């Protein structure tokens, strides 16, 4: 798209926002705010609270895995009747891994990551006064809040929370006879996810409309910062795939409550044959993974967008291969829709389908490789400024490479036969999706904290947080590859039932040590975050000397973002260390100098 095509006057309706100075009271400012910056912060804080719950759960079940069936008073403290005499019950173990997965995947890395930064950055970086619909945006947050409350509430029901794994495959999740977690807990899980999907759709539609229609003068699509490209494509992915999860969840609810047989057939449980016939559990898996695989990129792309921005800014260099970066985002997004079957190689589906999915899955490695190499080339001959955000971004590149590589094995149907559902899978997706995304999220928080709260986070605590997190994260997940290659299945409450795994016990203890240290290290971040919010040094307008438009807004938040008119854009976001320029950065709103050429 050429720059001329989108040059229009700054829309009047946007300036309109500036004319009305609504009286803001506590409720309209902090609670039912329609300001995108406040909504972004609401997503972040809610996501962090959910994150604390999710990580604490993982520390509890890591304790169980290191010392299976042993008594710990702390388990009884947190789990009550689910840990009689401090020994964890197998049902609650499964519930913990299920809710840990659900919370981390959806509540932290989807809503917490994409919700926070899409909201905060889309209007600021494209030069808009707010989102297309502030009301829808507020609604999106409140549906997310409601869904979080229901999910947390489900932890306290009599029969325990959902426990069928975060993918909640029926019939296990459909039959309360199969496990206690499939009772009330599962119903709440489904209701919570329904609200979550509503929230996600409201948000995504808003992001798409805002990016397409509300860019300031001169902000052509090819001048968008990569963050915005990532958020935009993520929103498209979410809009196309979340409705399919909604349908999967609804059909599961029908099976559970109305006696339909979408996923159930020929079941004998609890001494009787159930009245279901003709359904297929594999249908659920198709529907689930049709969302589930794009979901991986819904999580990952925003993190990659954030790290593109942070790496370019702090290398003081343009991001290498901007067009290839955009192209690979688009290629990954497209491919993500035609690879879902690689989660189902051993379900008994037609082997020919397995071949097709192997082919499409392994193709994703190509755009991913392009991204990784382009990050590394961006570092090359840079002048790297080590902010905590930069550390996390480089950490992201490392985990993205490490975790991406093992995808080559899992995506290959023939090899998947023997590593499917083992710890090899746990290692793979935690490194490539979990760590990369959470590193991207941390990078985003450190980088845009001054924009969110007008203050700086403490640098030294940031450094300490990164190194502890980086080392312990690899310490937790890298050894899991070996467990998986030894044939150890995931979601085992204890490995003591198989003597062949006895010699893996030491590795599990080691992993648990790393997990506990890594979990506690997050307190440094939480402390730094809340401390700096109140007492951090005041931020300057453009602390990282960055080019994108958000740094042209005043430090103090303003409804409508810019006090005067919205800045006009004259160049792309990556004119760092441009020859001929005096400074090593040239913000996007600086007109081209005489004789200066703009590639974008």
């Amino acid at each position, binding site marked *: 798209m050429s720059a001329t095509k989108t040059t229009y006057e700054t829309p009047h309706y946007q300036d309109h926002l500036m004319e009305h100075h609504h009286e803001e009271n506590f409720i309209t400012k902090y609670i039912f705010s329609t300001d995108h910056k406040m909504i972004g912060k609401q997503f972040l804080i809610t996501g962090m609270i959910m994150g604390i719950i999710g990580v604490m759960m993982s520390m509890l079940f890591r304790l169980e895995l290191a010392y299976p069936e042993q008594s710990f*008073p702390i388990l009884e403290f947190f789990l009550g009747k689910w840990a009689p005499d401090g020994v964890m019950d*197998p049902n609650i173990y499964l519930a913990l891994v299920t809710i840990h997965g659900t919370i981390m995947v959806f509540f932290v890395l989807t809503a917490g990551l994409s919700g926070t930064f899409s909201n905060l950055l889309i209007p600021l970086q494209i030069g808009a006064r707010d989102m297309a619909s502030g009301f829808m945006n507020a609604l999106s947050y409140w549906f997310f809040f409601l869904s979080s409350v229901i999910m947390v509430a489900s932890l306290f029901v009599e029969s325990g929370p959902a426990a069928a*794994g975060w993918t909640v*495959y029926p019939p*296990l999740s459909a039959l309360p006879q199969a*496990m206690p977690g499939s009772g009330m807990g599962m119903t709440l899980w489904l209701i919570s996810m329904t609200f979550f999907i509503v929230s996600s759709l409201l948000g995504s539609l808003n992001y798409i409309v805002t990016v397409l229609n509300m860019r300031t003068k001169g902000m052509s699509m090819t001048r968008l910062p990569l963050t915005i490209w990532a958020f935009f494509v993520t929103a498209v992915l979410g809009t196309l795939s979340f409705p399919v999860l909604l349908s999967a969840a609804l059909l599961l609810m029908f099976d559970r409550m109305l006696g339909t047989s979408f996923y159930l*057939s*020929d*079941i*004998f449980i609890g001494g009787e*044959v159930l009245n279901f*016939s003709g359904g297929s*559990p*594999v249908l659920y898996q198709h529907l689930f993974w049709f969302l589930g695989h794009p979901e991986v990129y819904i999580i990952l792309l925003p993190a990659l967008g954030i790290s593109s921005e942070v790496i370019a800014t702090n290398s*003081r*260099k*343009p991001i*290498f*291969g*901007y067009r290839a970066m955009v192209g690979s985002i688009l290629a990954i997004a497209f491919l993500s829709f035609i690879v879902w079957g690689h989660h189902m190689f*051993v379900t*008994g589906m037609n*082997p020919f389908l397995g*071949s097709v999915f*192997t082919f499409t899955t*392994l*193709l994703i490695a190509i755009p991913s490789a392009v991204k*990784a190499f382009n990050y590394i080339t961006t*570092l*090359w*001959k*840079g*002048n*790297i*400024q*080590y902010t905590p955000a930069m*550390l996390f971004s*480089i950490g992201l590149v*490392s985990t993205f*490479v490490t975790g991406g*590589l093992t995808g080559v*094995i899992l995506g*290959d149907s*023939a090899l998947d*036969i023997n590593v499917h*559902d083992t710890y090899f899978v746990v290692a793979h997706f935690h490194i490539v999706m979990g760590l990369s995304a959470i590193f991207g999220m941390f990078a985003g928080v450190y980088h845009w904290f001054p924009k969110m709260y007008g203050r700086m986070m403490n640098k030294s605590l940031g*450094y300490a947080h990164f190194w502890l997190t980086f080392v312990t994260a690899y310490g937790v997940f*890298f050894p899991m590859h070996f467990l998986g290659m*030894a*044939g150890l*299945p995931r979601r085992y409450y204890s490995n003591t*039932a*198989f003597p*062949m795994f*006895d*010699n*893996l016990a030491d590795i599990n203890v080691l992993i648990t040590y790393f997990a506990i240290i890594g979990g506690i290290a997050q*307190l440094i971040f939480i402390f730094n975050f809340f401390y700096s919010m109140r*007492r951090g040094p005041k931020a300057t307008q453009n602390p990282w000397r960055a080019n994108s438009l958000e740094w042209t807004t005043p430090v103090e938040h303003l409804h409508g973002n810019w006090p005067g008119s919205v800045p006009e854009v004259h160049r792309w976001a990556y004119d760092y260390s441009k020859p001929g320029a005096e400074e*090593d950065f040239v913000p996007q709103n600086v007109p081209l100098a005489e004789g200066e050429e703009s590639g974008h």
Partner: protein
Amino acid sequence: MSTVSIIVLIVLGILTLVQVMRISEISSEIQKGKDNAVSEKDNDTQGTLMLLVGFGFVISVVVMYLAWGKHLLPEPASAHGKEFDGLMNLSMLIINIVFFVVQPILFYFAWKYRGKKGQKAVYYEHNNKLELFWTMVPALALAVLIIWGLNVWSTVMMPENEEEPMVVEVYAQQFNWTTRYAGADNQLGNATVYEIEGANILGVDTKDAASADDIVAKELHLPVGKPVLFQFRSQDVIHSAYFPHFRAQMNCVPGAVTYFQFTPTLTTAEIRQNKDVKNHVEEVNTIREAKGEDVWEFNYVLLCNKICGAAHYNMQMDIIVETEDEFNAWLNEQKTVAETL
């Protein structure tokens, strides 16, 4: 009590941190004003840490390979397992080459190009040749892996049989396995959940003539060197029949029948003589002895590998691969469906 004291400790720790921060902040304000900006010294320290920790990580991966390589599964005990391991080794070789080249480069660059005063970064936007190069190289490597992988996949999933495979049913329920042999006609009788009653736990249709010589057992015996076609059923939730030593796995899906075929190539007696297996057994028994547990003898094992409920972690069955004579002797001892139902 310990929980309360841990919480108190954490709270105290946080309070201490707050005080330390306040002091350091006030003192730095007195010194200079704002000093949270990244200094050249920071770049130097963090860049050096990148190099040290990054290379430390890469080296620790080598150490893990050396220390834990012995934990990997022993040689495959099935005919297709050799092809599986070949493909796995090739894939592992490729991803390890990439890992050990790319990670060091990343951490080296992170150190080499750490910010210095007066240094200016190079304005380097793109290079089509370079980008084409690193699009094509992965594409070529993947082409090899895809073609080879699909070849292995189709030989595993759609094997061409020289002799008729022996049909065995593996039946899953919470939380155990049952087997059913097809008997002399090599044909399993019909079975549905609607026929389950009393001793007929598999729901075998006794009116179906093919079921009369079926044999239901609680062990999985297999003759060496003969192809076995497994038929999988489940009566309640999804289970997954995982035979790690045979590089085989298939889900058991209620309401459907799934299949997987392989040929065992090493008897239980033979695999016990394998060097890796012997070392494994010795290591495990040293651990078990220290804990006062029984001595373990290696057996092939069938595991459940799809979350299926509380005792998922203990849903197992031993697999005994033996010579054809031994197998026939065992089978002849078993009672047929006609005799038991």
